[in-house]
């Protein structure tokens, strides 16, 4: 044992003691070939995976270097099985190479050994996409580029894709020196690093991937920074119309693009321009259940040089499929919480691209780039008259009863009173409950049925201080930027959704001159407590601990 910051586990995870004096230097090495799995307060967990090793290999980091770095930083001797894994997995990279072919309709796929050739040919789902072109050479239609890569990765053979991504039509764009309010605009160091990590030298293996940054840390700016690097036609896909408008407003505020260059493509307005912002909903809309998706062509036929998938963890299934076909385009996924309750994170990596940049939440908090937040779970009893109905209900009904516990209103009132000078969001799942709360305070409410214009108006009023409390349903979970909000009171949520909890916290993480407070109000002695515990997992892994308060009725 020696005084080093890293412990390498047999399951290929690496535990970094963040309080060690060499932790930063060690982390700088690890991020080149590992993925950050969780980053609570004291010990951060990184993991080696096939994807991370191949990704490292594609950017020139070889297995000798990885083994050397791990052994250098490790507190204990590294087990042979870990070193073997690194050498074995990393050595697979480069065994299957994708290049341009003489025929512009096809790409050429070459394999290095007969064994791999035999294996590929024996897999029907892969063989059907390939035309034999030589002993160890195949032609594949350009259309199949993503699908072939996806299938080969699943087989354990990463494709060394040496085809440089296609540059789209040029659209000059730069950041302004000052924003529309005349304030000096400076891009933050980690935002620059994120862009560099994704684009690299713009050579083979660069230009696509996922960037994971905390809510409120300025992912939009990261996207815009990449736009300025590529200077090309750009499509931004985001979660809702309000987010579309926010993107457009941010682009016009901070970039030198003219209003006529930035268009909206939503259910309400279809105005594609050189930079277009659309929603996932419009892309996946179809008039009837079995019919085609009329707006998906925006993705495939828009001659985009760059596609930005905002909140990429929300990527819906039809877009997965199309994304597989868009392998020649520069693309970036942005998210704060790459956790999907359906477990399809890996597919996001395969199609949009691997995680290129990730930074622990508490690190940005310490540097002041996101607000310091205090999380509280407030437990309140059910009123006695609901105890028996609760006892007799099934699990789902129990959750609903507990979520809509009427005594939560008293808690909300007290919490609002506790923060008279803050901008407060009251967030919930159930409309009736939210309407009751809104009525009790005589407050405006935003739900899925609120017209977009009305929503915009209410957001504007909140931002400009006309209202300092806003009641919102899950429509405000993602991509809504309310910079001054510093208190969020969650009265109910979507069962155990970890990403929802994190995104809701994210609404109050914009840096400001005060701390932020996140309150999750749950019913004591109910299954809402269990769901709450699950919801908190992601944030707990990012270093947030919940203070529990039992509410005295």
């Amino acid at each position: 044992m020696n005084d080093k910051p890293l412990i390498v586990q047999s399951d290929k995870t690496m535990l970094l003691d963040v309080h060690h004096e060499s932790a930063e230097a060690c982390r700088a090495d690890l991020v080149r070939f590992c993925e950050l799995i969780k980053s609570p307060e004291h010990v951060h967990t990184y993991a080696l995976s096939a994807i991370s090793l191949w990704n490292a290999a594609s950017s020139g980091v070889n297995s000798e270097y990885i083994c050397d770095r791990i052994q250098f930083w490790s507190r204990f001797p590294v087990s042979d099985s870990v070193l073997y894994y690194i050498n074995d997995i990393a050595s697979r990279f480069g065994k299957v190479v994708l290049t341009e072919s003489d025929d512009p309709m096809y790409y050429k796929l070459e394999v290095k050994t007969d064994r791999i050739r035999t294996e590929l040919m024996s897999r029907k789902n892969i063989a059907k996409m390939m035309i034999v072109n030589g002993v160890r050479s195949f032609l594949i239609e350009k259309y199949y580029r993503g699908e072939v890569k996806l299938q080969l990765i699943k087989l354990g053979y990463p494709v060394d894709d040496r085809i440089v991504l296609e540059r789209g039509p040029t659209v000059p764009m730069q950041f302004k020196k000052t924003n529309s309010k005349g304030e000096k605009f400076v891009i933050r160091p980690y935002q620059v690093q994120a862009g560099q990590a994704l684009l690299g030298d713009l050579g083979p293996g660069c230009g696509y991937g996922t960037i994971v940054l905390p809510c409120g840390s300025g992912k939009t700016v990261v996207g815009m920074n990449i736009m300025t690097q590529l200077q090309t036609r750009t499509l931004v896909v985001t979660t809702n119309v309000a987010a579309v408008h926010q993107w457009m407003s941010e682009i016009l505020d901070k970039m030198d693009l003219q209003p006529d260059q930035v268009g909206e493509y939503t259910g309400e307005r279809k105005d594609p321009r050189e930079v277009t912002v659309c929603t996932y909903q419009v892309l996946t809309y179809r008039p009837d259940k079995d019919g085609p998706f009329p707006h998906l062509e925006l993705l495939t036929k828009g001659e985009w040089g760059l596609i930005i998938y905002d909140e990429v963890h929300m990527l819906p299934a039809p877009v997965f499929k199309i994304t597989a076909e868009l392998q020649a385009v520069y693309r970036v996924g942005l998210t704060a919480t790459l956790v999907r309750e359906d477990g399809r994170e890996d597919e996001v990596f395969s199609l949009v691209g691997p995680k290129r940049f990730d930074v622990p939440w508490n690190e940005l908090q310490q540097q002041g780039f996101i607000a310091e937040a205090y999380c509280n779970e407030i437990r309140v009893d059910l009123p006695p008259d609901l105890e028996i109905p609760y006892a007799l209900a099934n699990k789902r009904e129990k959750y609903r009863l507990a979520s809509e516990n009427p005594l939560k209103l008293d808690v909300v009132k007290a919490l609002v009173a506790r923060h008279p000078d803050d901008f407060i969001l009251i967030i919930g799942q159930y409309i009736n409950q939210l309407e009751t709360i809104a009525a009790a305070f005589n407050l405006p409410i935003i739900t899925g049925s609120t017209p977009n214009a009305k929503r915009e108006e209410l957001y504007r009023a909140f931002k400009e201080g006309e209202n300092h409390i806003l009641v919102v349903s899950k429509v405000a979970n993602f991509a809504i930027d309310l910079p001054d909000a510093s208190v969020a009171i969650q009265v109910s949520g979507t069962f155990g959704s970890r990403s929802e909890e994190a995104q809701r916290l994210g609404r109050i993480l914009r840096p400001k001159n005060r701390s932020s407070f996140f309150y999750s109000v749950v019913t004591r002695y109910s299954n809402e407590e269990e769901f709450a515990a699950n919801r908190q997992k992601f944030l707990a892994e990012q270093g947030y601990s919940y203070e529990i308060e039992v509410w005295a009725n």
Partner: protein
Amino acid sequence: MGQLTDYAKEKFKNLLSRYTEDNYFYIARNYLGLIPTPFHKPAITTRLCSFFSQQTIQERIISLLDEMDCTILSLVSVSSSIDAQTCTALLKGKWSYGTLLRRVSNLQERMVLLNDEGKLVFNPLLEERLKSLCSLKPLFGTEQNRQKSTPYCSTEFVRAYISLIEKEKKVVFKDEYALFFPAYNLEQLQLIFTSLTDTLNKLCIIYQQKDRKTSINYTKVHQLLSLNDRQLLCFLVAFDLDERAIKEGVQFTNNLIAILEKIGCCDTSSLKLLLRTLALKAGIRYDSSLIDCLSKWGLITLDELWYANQIEENVGRTTLVVDSDNTISYSGSCCKDDILYRFADICVLDRQTSYKVTPQSFTRGLDNLLVWEQVKTYLEHNSYPSMSISLIKLLQITYERYHQITIYDGIVLTCDDRTARLIENLESIQEHHLQTIAANVYLMRRSTEMLWRQILTSSGVLLPSTIADEQVEVIHREDNFIFTLLLKESTIEPLVVDIMEFSDEKHMDEDPSIANAIEKATLTSSQRQDLEHRYNARMILIEEQIVPQVVNGVIEAGGFDYQGKVGLCRQAVGKQNIALQLQLTDQELVVQALEVAYTPQKEALLKAAVMPTMEVKIIPVSKIFLVRQLRYHLC
């Protein structure tokens, strides 16, 4: 060379004086020359003692030792107590049986080894010098690789195992458990897991309840975990070996661990030799399943060679790191009183071990009689300041809730107001509610405890386990004897192996001056033959031993000397310390002569027990090419 102690001299004399007259005078005449009659045996013994106490004599004896001698001496040293026959039998894979038998007896003739009630011991006058020539290798292989850090059944493993089965309430192994034990390969993990289950079941440390759920006797677990890793392995192996020889099993394992630690690795035959030797030393039976047993618990690992696994005995646990997701991690081994595994769920057992504390894991701990104050103090004292504040608060709330209800023997339930409202108003529970004894105190139906527990739990009530001691008492009565005894015996200190791992190769250093002196000496042919025989047997150390006498008589006959061969066979009949080395046309045998008989055609037949199996054979003397008498047992 250090000064010889009186004790060593006395011991030497004592051992020698117990030799039979025949052997005694054989030795005395060889080393002291002619022994005139009348003689005074104590005086001769004193002379022999003086003779072997001389530095020049000792130097000479040592210089005549070779590699084979040193290997035999090493075996004697490791085994502590071994007879000539066993010594020969153990080493017979390395040399032929006859050669070995001859050499072991020769070491006795050379007074390197003496006989102590049938067992071979170092000559007390030479003991220190002989010990310095002993080594574990090449006796137990020649490989120089070191130990491996392969995981084994450690106290940390037992803690993780207990935490897991407490959570699962079942002991059936599942493949997904591999996630908790990433350092173990699946096959090894399954083997350790199931073996541990089997052992703990037999010792009633874990047991099945009526509802087939597994329960744990934490008093015993705590006692078991008072052992360190080495002691635990001694415990487990000893229990597997023979329940009737627990002490011996523990000593065997303790010995084995100490030697394995030193040799690092060896091939299969060397491992078997080591195990046979140590089994003999400890007085336990050796059989081929022993290797499986050691491999199962992780003392040794096969990777072309057998590697000893590094047993970490003194690696203390680091301070607990309590993270915001309520995982608690540390490296090293917990001390015997550690309680983390009792209120937390194992996440990973590896270099860094981590447990996760949840309200469920904590209440399980409380159900198993863990005290809240104990948990709180543990967290406060064993983690960095401020790390555990949130966790303690969470547990405090859980504890308060847990404490609101008490169930006595599955029949009397005392509770808070909220639960009381449920009991009084829930229709489905009325059939289980027999009577209200007082406010918030209810008499419940004992036979349906599981049902009313389910109803209350699904209504959001946190129910503690029933307070009852009956089961625990039953278990105490059942098996305390073996468990307690094994525990006591396993509390054993590590053994210090004072034998080197390797020593320099030892070659015999011949002194030609003795051979010259024999050649020049005036002797009859039988005297010369006898002297040369003893010289070749490295029994002539100094020229003063070259005197005209015949010590051995004829010991070899062959070829056409039929009568000579018959004569030697007849002389050996019934003598326990004489064996015959027979060269037949196609093989060599070492036998103990039982009888010489004749056919009607007057052909001599030797009835003999073939060593070491002692299978009786009848061999026509005419078929024997060469007969040689071996004095294989000097005592």
